[in-house]
């Protein structure tokens, strides 16, 4: 007997069912808006613009850009440089990371916890600051290390080391990304079932044979996956190639894109067409590598070696060698964190171009720091950075939480699409994304070009792939039935989200927030590409002071506190992440 009231109730209930679908629709539209136009625009602009014109200003389609790029020897050089740089840096980084993983996960290294702190500390160092410090240390004319080496060996002139070189770029990048690779692979080291290795030992193989014949083949897939993944990451890095390579004319795709838009020769116009074509090339390489990575990771699961049973593997006793790892890891910390920090501190305090000596100590002053508090541009930059980082963190955290929730729990059509959509942007390097955002917002009637908000859009878009992975794995750890129990208890979508999902995932949520905040703060690439009069960030201010105005002391005075803030914040997130995975 359907009374009127029941009918009305029925309609209302039917609407209630759709709450999840409506939410999915909204999130899908937002994600699609962030992801699809950039990729479309990139392909469009590659066959569109000519020198000095934005893609929509140009009137014709042309293959000229493609022709120019693919017939040019410069392109071949860029391929070579990018390949050598990316592979070299990853090999260096992986070597360090694998060694440290083995030390920390498989041997009885002393002071394990402290070592852990030391090697994760460099994670948060902005690459622009690392580059600045190493220029101070190893530039061929007055780099501190070169000065010392020359004094010891009685050399004349410049050198012997030169940071402005492919070797310099590779080593410094490798040192910088080692902790990131460590996070990715150390779990694999700790998850090898010790009985697999013990079976090798009882079969008569020595420790070295076990390492070579059993442990390494087991680790192989995970290490290879890490190599592929980080080649993509290094290919995208801009700061180090720009600051260390450009002075000697060594370009990779990422820096070539920047300098096509911001030509070094005065009076030359921005070449958007060539920049876009480089962007397409970078996009294709990244997409192929990510695809290979995806396939490989899936296959790597086959070696289900390693599903943990909750025990720690038996640790290898290093005996009298046990202080060697400690020494190596401490040295790593000194080289990668302490030395740059001290160098920049010195630069910020010393008079311009002063060589390091006892005599100079009396001339140290705090002028650079005093300037800092008077410079209005800097106050503005700090404000912008805080607005941008906070906005990105808030928006990205909410967006990726919703995306992950809907795609992990959703059995409704579109959930899968949402997941794919948020991941596909991983193939678009930051510098390429920024490039197309220039095109989009310089042409579209959305008035955010040149404001902080265009950088926020860029930041949120870039956060999607990593963020959804972080949150999805968090959701997968929460049993579906915990949410379903709320539904059968009578709680609707909103109550379930705020009473059950949020409290359970609070740690991941907070971690994601801090990570997005600090990653945005550190980012130089996109902020620099998108910068205009009113929206410059601290990183951009640093870049300008260093590369264009050569005010090294002022730049260093900004770099020191920034480096400490980003390092501490990143360390907190990284440690929480590793602890949770343990």
């Amino acid at each position, binding site marked *: 007997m359907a009374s009127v009231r029941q009918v009305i109730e029925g309609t209302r209930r039917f609407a209630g069912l759709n709450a999840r679908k409506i939410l999915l629709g909204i999130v899908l539209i937002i994600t699609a808006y962030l992801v699809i136009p950039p990729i479309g625009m990139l392909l469009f602009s590659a066959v569109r613009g000519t020198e000095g014109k934005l893609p929509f200003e140009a009137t014709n389609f042309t293959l000229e850009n493609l022709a120019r790029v693919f017939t040019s020897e410069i392109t071949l050089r860029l391929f070579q440089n990018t390949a050598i740089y990316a592979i070299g840096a990853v090999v260096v980084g992986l070597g360090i990371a694998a060694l440290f993983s083995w030390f920390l996960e498989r041997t009885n290294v002393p002071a394990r916890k402290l070592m852990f702190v030391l090697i994760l500390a460099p994670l948060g160092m902005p690459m622009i600051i690392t580059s600045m410090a190493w220029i101070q240390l190893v530039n061929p004319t007055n780099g501190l290390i070169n000065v010392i080496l020359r004094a010891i060996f009685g050399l004349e002139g410049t050198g012997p080391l030169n940071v402005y070189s492919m070797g310099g770029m590779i080593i410094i990048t490798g040192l910088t990304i080692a902790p990131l690779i460590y996070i990715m692979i150390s779990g694999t080291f700790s998850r090898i079932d010790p009985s697999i290795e013990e079976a090798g030992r009882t079969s008569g193989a020595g420790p070295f044979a076990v390492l070579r014949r059993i442990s390494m083949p087991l680790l192989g897939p995970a290490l290879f996956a890490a190599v592929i993944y980080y080649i993509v990451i290094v290919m995208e890095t801009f700061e180090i190639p720009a600051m260390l390579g450009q002075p000697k004319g060594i370009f990779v795709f990422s820096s070539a894109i920047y300098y096509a838009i911001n030509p070094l020769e005065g009076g030359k116009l921005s070449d958007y067409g060539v920049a876009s074509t480089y962007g397409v090339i970078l996009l294709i390489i990244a997409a192929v590598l990510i695809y290979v990575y995806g396939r490989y990771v899936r296959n790597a699961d086959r070696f289900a070696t390693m599903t943990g049973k909750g025990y720690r593997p038996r640790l290898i006793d290093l005996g009298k060698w046990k202080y060697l790892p400690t020494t190596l890891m401490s040295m790593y910390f000194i080289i990668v964190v302490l030395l740059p920090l001290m160098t920049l501190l010195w630069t910020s305090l010393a008079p311009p171009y002063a060589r390091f000596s006892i005599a100079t100590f009396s001339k140290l002053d705090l002028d650079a720091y005093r300037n800092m508090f008077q410079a209005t541009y800097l106050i503005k930059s700090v404000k912008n950075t805080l607005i941008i980082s906070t906005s990105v963190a808030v928006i990205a955290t909410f967006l990726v939480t919703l995306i992950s929730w809907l795609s992990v729990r959703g059995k409704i059509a579109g959930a899968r699409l949402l997941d794919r959509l948020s991941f596909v942007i991983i193939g678009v390097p930051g510098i390429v994304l920024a490039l197309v955002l220039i095109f989009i917002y310089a042409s579209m009637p959305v008035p955010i070009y040149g404001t902080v908000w265009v950088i926020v859009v860029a930041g949120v878009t870039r956060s999607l792939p990593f963020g959804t992975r972080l949150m999805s794995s968090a959701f997968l750890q929460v049993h579906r039935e*915990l949410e379903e129990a709320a539904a059968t208890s009578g709680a609707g979508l909103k109550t379930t989200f705020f009473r059950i999902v949020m409290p359970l995932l609070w740690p991941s949520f907070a971690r994601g927030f801090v990570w997005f905040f600090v990653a945005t703060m550190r980012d130089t690439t996109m902020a620099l590409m998108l910068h205009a009069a009113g929206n410059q960030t601290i990183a951009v201010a640093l870049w300008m002071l260093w590369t264009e105005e050569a005010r090294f002391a002022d730049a260093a005075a900004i770099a020191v506190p920034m480096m400490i803030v980003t390092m501490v914040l990143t360390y907190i997130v990284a440690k929480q992440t590793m602890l949770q995975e343990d």
Partner: protein
Amino acid sequence: MSVTIKNLQKTFTTSRGLVQAIRDLDLEIKDGEFFSLLGPSGCGKTTTIRCIAGLETPDDGEIWLGDQMVYSKARNKLVPAHQRKLGMVFQSYAIWPHMNVFDNIAFPMKHGSGGKYTKTEIEESVTRACKLVQLAGFEYRPSTQLSGGQQQRVALARCLVKDPNVVLLDEPLSNLDAKLRAETRVELRRLVKSIGATAVYVTHDQVEAFAVSDRIGVMLNGELIQVGTPQEIYLKPQHEFIADFVGRINFLDGTVVQDDNRQGEKVVETQIGRLASKDLEDIPAGNKVKIGVRAENIKILEKMPKDNENCFTGVVKSAVFLGEYISCEVEIGGQLIDINGPPEHHIVVGSEISVLLPRDLIVVIPCGDNVKCEIPEKIIRKSKEAHRK
């Protein structure tokens, strides 16, 4: 409150293509009945209970809770899970780790009822629910510090706190150890009966289903293949699969014939000989049947009796002493038959023994050779008739 399911269909898309999880499911569970869905994993029993709960949306059919329609494809009606006013216990218990026992149990009243309960009402109900499941005094314990059995009881208290008319129990005991499981299932039935709720219970354990249920529905490949009381399911399985699923059983292929030696009484001609059974009246002579004899129902005889109906002689091929019984394989007429002999018997491998297959305990499955793949219409109709009575 009764639960009525009409022509329910549910298909899942998996990486291997479409899987029909539920097909043509019709079922009526009576008010106050304790009903079990029994079947192997993947048979669709959990999907069925989740459709009743509103956690899955079927493709077609109707679901009624009492006289309220909660799902109908034809009328485009779907009441979401949180408005169906039922209670559910999940396989994982789904105890919220960020809440203590009290908050877990109070949740349906606090956040699942549109705020219609006062604080005192909630406190009273939670206290009562705790007492009911013997958790009094544990109210403020963090839920992460509970044992498996305690978690199970919190889940049950949370399910019962609002006195639901229908409770859904999805393998609620499968995470408990064997001894606790046996104790808890009796308790569970008592509790649900005490509040007068209709229970739908999902399990893959036939002993558990026998112990708790008023009636059992056996599912296979998404279909409900038999509905009946526990005794009916055990004694008169209408499908080879059910006979096999419930206990250890020997199958023999046979044909129904009229035995001229016994005034034309129908018997089954099998490869070990002729078998008499009380369940042959409905089956015309000439039909193929499957005969099932449970290992525990076969009797070992001291000597061959005079009236040797259903008695056979065979050679012991193996005998393993298992304490409760001796598990033997006896070769009769070229066929190995599993027999559970009494533990005090001395059974020698290689010796000859006589056995009796009691005519009242012989299972006759009248569906020819292809029972495994297809269930003839007749059986479904028969099972429906049985449950309508």
